[in-house]
């Protein structure tokens, strides 16, 4: 199942990056609180989408990333329920990442053997198993009531109530920047290119002497870790978790956002995620009774008229004629790594 993605730049020019980062940090205190919250959620979920995109670049569609999203969230939630002494965001997030990575290490063993729709279906199956367990193990997970996840400190700091949300925003932002940088290094590395090679021609990869299955497995680990990171961050931001984190519609949404943003850049997932959250919010605001219809239509339009996702629009704006100027752009980035 070939997705259509342009070469994309992995990242735009460094100048733009710094300006963007500056704005993200500087503007937060001056925008309404709900907007800060919305961005926080969007980034947290964007990380899960980033995980999905890493696999998409290898032509693997994980329709079950809710598995790691939920695993990360519930790792934090259950730890608190079990009476974890420290209620620190950083600790919980670490826990979430560790658990989801461990899970990916097991599930990946099976999934790495699958391709195409079967990879997708098996991921759905795994995530639905977790869903039914979260739903049924009432005594442990509180069933659909879910669990509350309240943190009292971030890295030991205890921000005042009115600054709590802002602190969480910066916390999530920092981790997001970090995760995106890691993902960027991966996509620019031999392993990252190997995934694109797999996208194009698995047989050749094997005939070069590289193991397709191992390449996928290793990428899958990071993808799962990102899922758990996003899940844990969502959990501490929202403050409450429920089994539908693992439901197939949520996983479908992640793939949806991935295609909405595009797979050409490690920033695309974040862009897609932010736009998606905005659209959904305004759908709720503008047509409370038919928000699904509005949301669906917007996404329909994007799929039909912006094949490469929103990022491709940026690309088109950024370079006069697409295609052949692309290499030089990517080359420029490459050169900046000279040492």
């Amino acid at each position, binding site marked *: 199942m070939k997705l259509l993605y342009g070469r994309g730049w992995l990242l735009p020019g460094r100048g733009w990056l710094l300006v963007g980062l500056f704005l993200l940090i500087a503007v937060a205190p001056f925008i309404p609180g709900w907007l800060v919250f919305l961005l926080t959620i969007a980034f947290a979920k964007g990380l899960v989408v980033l995980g999905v995109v890493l696999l998409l670049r290898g032509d693997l569609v994980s329709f079950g990333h809710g598995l790691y999203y939920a695993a990360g969230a519930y790792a934090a939630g259950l730890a608190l329920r079990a009476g974890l002494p420290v209620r620190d965001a950083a600790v919980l997030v670490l826990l979430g990442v560790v658990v989801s990575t461990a899970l990916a290490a097991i599930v990946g063993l099976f999934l790495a053997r699958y391709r195409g729709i079967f990879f997708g279906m098996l991921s759905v199956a795994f995530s639905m198993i977790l869903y039914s367990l979260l739903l049924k193990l009432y005594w442990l997970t509180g069933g659909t009531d879910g669990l509350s996840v309240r943190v009292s400190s971030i890295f030991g700091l205890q921000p005042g109530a009115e600054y709590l949300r802002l602190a969480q925003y910066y916390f999530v932002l920092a981790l997001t920047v970090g995760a995106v940088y890691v993902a960027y290094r991966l996509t620019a590395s031999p392993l990252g290119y190997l995934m694109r090679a797999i996208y194009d021609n698995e047989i050749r990869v094997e005939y070069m002497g590289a193991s397709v299955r191992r390449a996928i497995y290793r990428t899958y680990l990071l993808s799962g870790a990102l899922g758990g990171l996003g899940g844990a961050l969502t959990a501490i931001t929202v*403050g409450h978790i429920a089994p539908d984190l693992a439901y197939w519609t949520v996983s479908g949404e992640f793939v949806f956002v991935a295609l909405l943003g595009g797979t050409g850049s490690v920033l695309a997932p974040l862009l897609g995620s932010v736009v998606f959250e905005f659209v959904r919010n305004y759908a709720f605001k503008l047509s*409370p009774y038919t928000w699904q219809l509005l949301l669906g239509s917007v996404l329909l339009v994007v799929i039909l008229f912006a094949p490469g996702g929103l990022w491709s629009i940026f690309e088109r704006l950024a370079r006069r004629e697409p295609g052949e100027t692309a290499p030089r752009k990517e080359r420029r980035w490459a050169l900046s790594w000279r040492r």
Partner: protein
Amino acid sequence: MQRAAQLPRVLSLVVGLALVWTACAPGAPSSGGAQKPAEIKIAMVDFMSGGAAKFGTGALNAGKMLFDQINEQGGIGGVKVSYQMVDENGTVDQVVTNFRRLVLDEKVDAVIGYTSSANCLAVAPVAEELKKLTVIHICGTYRLFEEGSYKYVIRTSSQGVTDSVGAAAYVARMKPDLKTVAGINDDYAWGRDSWDMFIHALRRLKPDVQVREELWPKAFVGEYSAEISKLQAARPDVIHTSLWGGHMDSFIKQAQARGLFGESLVIMTTGETALLTLSRDVPQGVAMSGRGQYLYIPEPEKNEMNRRFIADYSSQFNEIPVYPAYRMAQSILGLKAAYEKAIQAKNGGWPTQEEVIAAWDDLTYETPTGTIRTRSHDSQQQAVYGITSGNYDPKWGFPLLDRIQVFPADKVNPPLGTKTIQWIDSSFTLQ
């Protein structure tokens, strides 16, 4: 070479600048003053889509109607009310994001709503954080106030215990010789808790009762052949169910076709809505209530407010109000009462939100349901059960209940500050 080396320095510079910049940020806005506002902004949240949509819209309709009436009569304390509605459907993070938008962006004065346990449990702490009056109109989980204490959250209806304990009491009276019982409940908190409290209460009344089956169908599947076979094979004296809405109707249809209601006494804690949806076809001999339901008992004529409520509602939406509509009425009339009490206490001065909340403690107010008493943020009401009879009442368009039993609020609710299950096990009794 150099450029790579520069990166950290440039980065730290940017971050530093940004943080300095943010240092001169304005603090969080302080909660509103006490001068008379131009309007009171209310947001009502309930299901507009998904399986519970009928009940959600029922509640929202009632809200619309009552606020319009209040405005016609000059509003609350002379201030008109403006309201908006939001769908409760969606994942928890959506619901919370919406709540924040309502409070911080729409700047509403109060949020009324939340049916699902997960949602009210998720929203309550946020309400506390944002210091915004939030009135829970249905959400029946006892965890809400037993696992957290909230200043800004108020529940204007009794929690599930009323229905479950009432059900136990009712079957104990109707079938004094009952030996065996089975349960079929939704596989989520509402169903789990309902069954839990029911069986605990029943054991208090009938210590030697045996449980034959506990079935937990996944909500909304709507195909119950296997479950019904299981129940018929077990042949218990009593079957308890807290299934509700559309899938309860499905269950009734399939069970009726198989004569389940003839073999065991089935008690449905939220069965009342079936009277409206199934009308003539509702099976006979089913014990049911509408979560402390009011519609039939006391007969509307005996409660003027209820008679008017039903008349207005059915003329405006040409259907009879379902119980969520009543619950919404309780919340809105409670809000009105609280405001008026607070205004009176300030002899005419406009109260702050905190004063309104304070006024709410130990507040009693009349509703179509009857008198509601709210003590320290939570409310109690009576349990009412009856059994479906054959006598179809053309005036209402459904058969009325008979063998009605009313259990006063203080019998079927734990006293303030006691944990529900403990209270049932230790001191629940019919005497």
